[in-house]
């Protein structure tokens, strides 16, 4: 694989680069939230409460141990690689992975009990009331979590009587928190009238916040930086927080940074549906490259609404519920250190207002146009990382293999352009693609799950160039029918650290040397005469 020299494609060699210093990838196994908070299930309870699906569903819920032994989950947290997963015959849900550690290279798979306590730690408005027996039984488990320190544990209170929890759910419109089928807590509404502060919304938002906190802690730990070094956090999940007067006011980023102990950071939220993470990483890289901030972390928590989204198809086909985990991720981006992989802001793809919605136009704008602008061929990119949804989840639901569909489109466009031969399409896909592994948590699988592996492989010198592609379905918000997406390139570091510019001393010494050489030349000419 030919690797282009930096100078051949950089517009401006003095640009400060940004690098990926570390990543965090977490899952939270939340089986009870599937039933109580996943919208497929909550909708079914309204339109068809006595139907077969809701009766069958509880029999298809996996245990924590089963979730740990599930191949794609072990890949997500970095204990197995996408290449190892590709060698396992599909489907994967009926196989036991030979690795089932809850802790992985990039993060962990947290059990529901610990997460409910973490949610309470993230609640700073006294909205969450937990059964004190539940707290007593599981507090030690959260305290033992290597990422959770005393400042977080100090936010957990002792809890209340079970009867009070039951009363809140029955009489105060509170959302129940359940564990193994038992009511263990309540999330209160934050306002008596404002629907934007309903118990339902508060639960969803606190879940997003708590899983983002865990992701931040994992990434900062993995990056080997002090918490105080983080200057800015960008949240890119798909939730909104606010009240009736500012419904999406936001700042999940600052809220999570507070709990994670990032005392030197402020932040803001970046929204773009599933393309959010890619937009956020470009933003973070640009902030660092411009010198605005030295260390920026992009983060996103998970989504209860999407739990069990394809449950009906899974149950119908006798499968377990595979969408039983929340997903979260975080990426630490810092100034070029001459070592870590760089985010090359000269090679960016954008789906613009004028691009149009034809698949060909979309893939051109995101993949081939930025490559053309950089003078690169499709085959110059080692790996492409588009939507990396786990096919175990999507195939039985009639949505096909999403990463494969993306790779087929990239390959097909390459054939149309003459970059590859039609006969080599499948070979191209095998060499430049990856098997999907990420949970269907919206923004979570979109492009970014690969960054931990990309960093590892670039540091080892195995690969040099990876294109990350994020795509978003904006029509869901009913504001525009336009599609959206951005792409960015991650490249192995060329080892050169930026100089701020040539120093004044260096200039003086260069001039002195030039004058000395000139004087010597004059002398030599004099002597010749």
């Amino acid at each position, binding site marked *: 694989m030919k690797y282009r020299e930096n100078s051949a494609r950089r517009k401006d060699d003095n640009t400060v680069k940004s690098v990926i210093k570390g990543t965090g990838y977490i899952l939270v196994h939340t089986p009870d939230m599937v039933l109580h908070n996943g919208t497929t299930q909550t909708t079914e309870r309204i339109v068809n409460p006595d139907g077969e699906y809701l009766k069958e569903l509880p029999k298809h819920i996996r245990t924590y141990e089963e979730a740990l032994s599930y191949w794609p989950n072990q890949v997500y947290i970095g204990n197995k690689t996408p290449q190892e997963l590709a060698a396992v015959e599909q489907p994967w849900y009926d196989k036991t992975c030979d690795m089932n550690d809850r802790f992985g290279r990039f993060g962990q798979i947290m059990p529901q009990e610990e997460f409910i306590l973490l949610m309470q730690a993230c609640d700073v408005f006294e909205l969450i009331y937990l059964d004190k027996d539940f707290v007593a039984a599981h507090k030690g488990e959260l305290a033992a979590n290597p990422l959770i320190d005393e400042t977080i544990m100090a936010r957990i209170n002792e809890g209340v009587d079970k009867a009070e929890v039951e009363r809140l759910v029955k009489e105060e419109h509170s959302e129940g928190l359940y564990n193994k089928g038992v009511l263990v807590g309540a999330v209160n509404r934050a306002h008596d009238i404002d629907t934007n502060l309903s118990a339902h919304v508060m639960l969803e938002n606190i879940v997003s916040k708590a899983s983002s906190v865990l992701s931040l802690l994992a990434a900062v730990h993995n990056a080997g930086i002090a918490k105080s070094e983080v200057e800015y956090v960008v949240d890119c999940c798909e939730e909104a927080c606010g009240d009736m007067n500012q419904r999406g006011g936001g700042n999940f980023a600052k809220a999570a940074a507070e709990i994670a102990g990032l005392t030197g950071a402020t932040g803001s939220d970046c929204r773009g549906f599933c393309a959010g993470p890619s937009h956020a990483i470009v933003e973070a890289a640009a902030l660092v490259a411009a010198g605005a901030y030295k260390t920026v972390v992009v983060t996103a928590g998970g989504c209860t609404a999407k739990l069990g989204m394809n449950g009906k198809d899974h149950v119908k086909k006798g499968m377990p519920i595979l969408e039983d985990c929340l997903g979260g991720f975080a990426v630490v981006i810092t100034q070029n250190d001459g070592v870590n992989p760089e985010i090359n802001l000269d090679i960016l793809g954008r789906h613009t207002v004028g691009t149009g919605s034809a698949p060909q136009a979309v893939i051109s704008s995101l993949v081939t146009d930025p490559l053309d602008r950089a003078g690169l061929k499709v085959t110059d990119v080692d790996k492409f990382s588009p939507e990396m949804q786990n096919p175990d989840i999507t195939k039985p639901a009639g949505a096909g293999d999403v990463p494969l569909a993306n790779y087929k489109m990239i390959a097909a466009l390459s054939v*149309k352009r003459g970059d590859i031969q039609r006969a080599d399409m499948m070979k191209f896909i095998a060499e430049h693609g990856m098997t999907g592994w990420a949970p269907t948590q919206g923004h979570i699988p979109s492009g970014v799950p690969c960054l931990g592996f990309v960093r590892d492989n670039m540091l080892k010198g195995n690969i040099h160039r990876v294109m990350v592609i994020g795509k978003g379905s904006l029509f869901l918000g009913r504001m525009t029918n336009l599609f959206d997406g951005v792409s960015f390139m991650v490249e192995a570091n060329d080892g050169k650290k930026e100089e701020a510019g040539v120093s004044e001393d260096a200039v003086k010494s260069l001039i002195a040397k030039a004058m000395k050489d000139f004087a010597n030349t004059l002398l030599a000419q004099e002597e010749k005469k």
Partner: protein
Amino acid sequence: MDLENQKRVKEFAEKYGPENVVVLLGASEGEASGLAAETVTNGDPTYAGPLTGVQLGLKVYHVCEPEIKKEFDPEVYDKNVGMMEMVLDVDDISNEMKPIRDQYCKF
């Protein structure tokens, strides 16, 4: 087929007359295409939407099917569908669509 689209198809059929409506699909594979085709001809087979038990019998095609492809300006078709034609399993889709049309189309 999602509930919103079922509602729209039903409204168009009522407004313009079912004999004047052709449904054109762009689904990514056979099973999804077949489900949508059945929904606008013989009624929603999942009994979830407004077309449950409603047999519109509409003409329905997938945009990759040869009968429809020949209706397009070849350049326009190539620009908009050409790439996806290489990606989709067109035979699989045709094999799903044709029997449904043969069985349930009224026009």
